[in-house]
């Protein structure tokens, strides 16, 4: 089971349609400060159902939508889709390829999709939960998170282990 593809349209600085293809093994993402690398990490969390905007470095739905600049107008919606190779049946759903998608609008409305069909957030959470991708806090490990794990109090640090369980 691995992530084959991440498609972004309107997610933060990824205004234009962007299609990342991934292989198994190691993929590196490089580039200057502020170019959009960590925004990719945010997109992954967002598609997987992240509900805390502070974790996504924002405050509300519209912070996830390309805000526009002097040279390019803002967008009205954002869409991101992750495609998983599921031949190992990690996701308990009878498809060898599974897409999980999320769309959001400036109104604040969020929509969730599995294999292109609209579902509820809880369906995404449930599917990922069964695959061990639900509460697993380590799917993306952000800038500064690693050191934070050391600064936590012992009772807070426990949560790392509980979330992975």
């Amino acid at each position, binding site marked *: 089971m691995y992530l084959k593809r991440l498609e972004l349209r309107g997610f933060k600085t990824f*205004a*234009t349609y962007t299609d990342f293809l991934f*292989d198994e093994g190691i*993929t*590196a*993402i490089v580039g200057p400060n502020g170019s959009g690398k960590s925004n990719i990490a945010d997109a992954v969390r967002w598609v997987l159902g992240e509900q805390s905007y502070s974790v996504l470095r924002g405050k509300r739905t519209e912070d996830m939508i390309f805000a526009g600049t002097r*040279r390019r107008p803002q967008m009205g919606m954002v869409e991101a889709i992750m495609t998983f190779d599921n031949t190992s049946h990690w996701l308990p759903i009878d498809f060898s390829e599974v897409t999980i998608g999320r769309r959001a609008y400036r109104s604040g409305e969020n929509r969730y999709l599995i294999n292109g069909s609209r579902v509820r957030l809880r369906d995404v959470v449930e599917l990922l939960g069964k695959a061990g991708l639900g509460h697993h806090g380590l799917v993306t490990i952000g800038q500064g998170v690693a050191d934070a794990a050391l600064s936590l109090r012992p009772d807070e640090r426990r949560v790392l282990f509980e979330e992975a369980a």
Partner: protein
Amino acid sequence: MKEEFQSVFVIAAQEFSRYFETLFGGGQARLTLTDPDHPATTGVDIIARPPGKRQQSLALLSGGERALTATALLFAVLKARPLPFCLLDEVDAMLDEANVGRFRVLLEEFAKQTQFIVITHNRQTIEAADTIYGISMGEQGVSNVISLRLEGEKVSR
């Protein structure tokens, strides 16, 4: 849920000691429970001693030593409860050349079981990758992407 904590902890604790020694090229560390008689509420403590040094509180560790210790911990939890893929965002930023080298070896080992997407500025980490995506900021405040595969084939997107 609490049974789960216990089983995750036992495996992670074992792996943490191992990964710490691998990443530091020596020394020793372990995870301990603050209240072993109460697994439902106990906290988790870290005891770490880099090679050639005496064991002291975590606070006295250097920035790079903390980053490396945290990496050992996160990999240990990942080993106990594997994920199909994992995205690392500049976890190697504070590491010197020697430590990045050991981090890279551990990452490559782990990558046999887990797909990694690694945001990095570090040459050694980049060298471990099969595919590289270069992100740049365009004039309109929009991210542009170029992908580079290991064979040197460059594709603009």
